[in-house]
């Protein structure tokens, strides 16, 4: 039965239900228990934002604190995965991938291919991304395109509590390494989530709004900003079709192409830095595979090619907003109308 819970609670519930079902699922990360070695109560934190809170009292040693040593513990999660465990490791901020990327892209991503199909690495790396938290340049990035670039990794970008739970359960059960990206501004978002266990498959985009005029392809938190823009545009008589990619690797190219064949106009909205991001990738695919359907140049709405600024004024300018998306839609709609 569905009831309203937050994105953060949905993630916690997915972890808890999978841990109850499968003893090989373990959880680790900085402060994931939260009181190790300190005088305070264990389970004080449950991760820096409390996402894993409550798991330690239920599952004991299967929830592990780590030193701040991302290379060692992300690598350990990967090594344990090749030895039959299903670890879910929390890389607190996606920005910290820089200190452990080798273990992810040279080790986990390549084992299966390099070892001739004999390795299985069912590891999930949960990580927090995105701007809007006034957290400045080293705690606000959207580095998911870097992971999407790497063959051997799967990249998951839930936008709602429902998807967060279903995609995380799928990630844990999946036999390949998965980078599970959680937008920090979505943690408090409420939505309908069934109590029972379910999965959301990878590579199946969600058409969150149907429309005949312009296709908007987006992902993660931007789905909500695009829906706001689409609502405003509908009042002006422009019908947008909004596609939530859900996963960037694998990517549901068919759903994008079908929509563009129908609308002939495409806006791609991506919170990641503008070069070699998901927007450029989707644009290239559409330009290559649906060129004849296009009735206007593709528009991309992204932040500028700068680090994420700290000051609230600057950060608000940096992150794509509904007004920018609406302008882009109006531009493609108005092109040779």
């Amino acid at each position, binding site marked *: 039965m569905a009831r309203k819970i937050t994105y953060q609670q949905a993630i916690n519930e997915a972890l808890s239900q999978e841990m109850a079902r499968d003893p090989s699922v373990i959880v680790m990360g900085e402060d994931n228990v939260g009181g190790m070695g300190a005088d305070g109560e264990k389970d004080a934190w449950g991760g820096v934002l409390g996402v894993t809170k409550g798991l330690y009292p239920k599952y004991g040693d299967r929830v592990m604190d780590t030193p701040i040593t991302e290379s060692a513990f992300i690598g*350990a*999660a990967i090594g344990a995965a090749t030895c039959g465990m299903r670890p879910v490791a929390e890389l607190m901020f996606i920005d910290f991938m820089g200190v452990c990327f080798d273990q992810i892209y040279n*080790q986990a991503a390549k084992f299966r*291919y390099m*070892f*001739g*199909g004999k390795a299985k690495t069912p590891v999930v790396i949960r990580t927090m991304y995105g701007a809007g938290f006034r957290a400045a340049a080293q705690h606000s990035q959207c580095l998911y395109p870097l992971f999407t670039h790497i063959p051997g990794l799967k990249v998951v970008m839930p936008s709602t509590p429902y998807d967060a739970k279903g995609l995380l359960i799928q990630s844990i059960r*999946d036999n*390949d390494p998965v980078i599970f990206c959680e937008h920090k501004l979505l943690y408090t978002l409420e939505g309908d989530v069934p109590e029972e266990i379910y999965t959301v498959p990878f590579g199946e985009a969600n058409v969150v709004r149907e429309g005949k005029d312009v296709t908007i392809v987006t992902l993660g938190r931007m789905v909500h900003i695009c829906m706001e823009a689409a609502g405003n545009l509908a009042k002006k008589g422009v019908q947008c079709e909004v596609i939530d990619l859900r996963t960037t690797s694998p990517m549901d190219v068919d759903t994008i192409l079908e929509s563009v064949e129908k609308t002939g106009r495409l806006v791609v909205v991506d919170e990641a830095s503008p070069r070699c991001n998901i927007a450029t990738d989707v644009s290239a695919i559409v330009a290559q595979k649906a060129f004849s359907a296009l009735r206007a140049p593709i528009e991309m709405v992204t932040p500028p090619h700068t680090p994420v600024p700290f000051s609230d004024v600057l950060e608000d300018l940096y992150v794509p907003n509904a007004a920018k998306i609406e302008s882009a839609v109006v531009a493609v709609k108005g092109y040779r109308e």
Partner: protein
Amino acid sequence: MTTQPSREDLLKAYRMMKTIREFEERVHIEFATGEIPGFVHLYAGEEASATGICMHLNDNDKIASTHRGHGHCIAKGVEVHGMMAEIYGKKTGTCGGKGGSMHIADLDMGMMGANGIVGGGPPLICGAGLAAKFKKNQGVAVAFVGDGGSNQGTTLESLNLATVWHLPCIFVIENNGYAEATSSKWSVSCKDIAERAQGFGMPGVMVDGHDFFAVYEAAGEAVRRARKGGGPTLIECKLNRYYGHFEGDAQTYRGPDEVKKLRETRDCLKNFARKVTAADLVKQSELEAIDKDVVALIDDALAKAKAAPKPGPKDLLTDVYVSY
């Protein structure tokens, strides 16, 4: 408590070391013909280390290796025919020709991979140790690391994590004196890498890595401790490689007779043979019989590798994911 190898163990150890040596000497010769693609890093001269450690390991135990990984593979029981074919990039190789010399892995044998990234193995071995702890199978996990890798952050972080998590891990630092062409006397900040163990709260021992018996004894104690839940150990094996960093390395950084002298005075196989025959533990004729077997085995592996088919175009796209 010391570890005395049985007669069967001695014969097994000699066969293991001889197999590694013969494998590497033959790859050295064959590489010069130009038929072997890519990079090859040979382990010849270091056999006592892989053997002295792996003699204590069973199928539950895991190892992670380095770019210089052939010896570790053989010592952990990876089959030489598959290895040779892999080095030739053949479909019959251990990894179907998709890994090559630097990525030979056989997870069924507990061999988690040679590794093209210096310091890539220790974090993975923390994970293998962690899995053994959860499975309560008394498994032990061993990371082989070079003197170059001993300076990597991944290695140092793993030493810390292994102690913090109290893991059944052993870090074997094979100090062969050179990280590529750079002397470890210059690149390592302390006199002996074994000293670093103390800073990470684990026992650190230094052994003569040319001496099978020294390695075997140190490894025996470390493995026993790990199996009993006593936590990690660092073992530094001081040893030498007989060839360059990679095949084709002119080794201008080494003294003119350095390797010749090592082969004459420090060779692990010669010293092993001398010791066991002098003590009348094994007959010279038994060792000679092993030599003959091993030469025939490597001859056969080489012939089959050369004759084997290469992967087909379809193999390019397979095994990126379990499912996608």
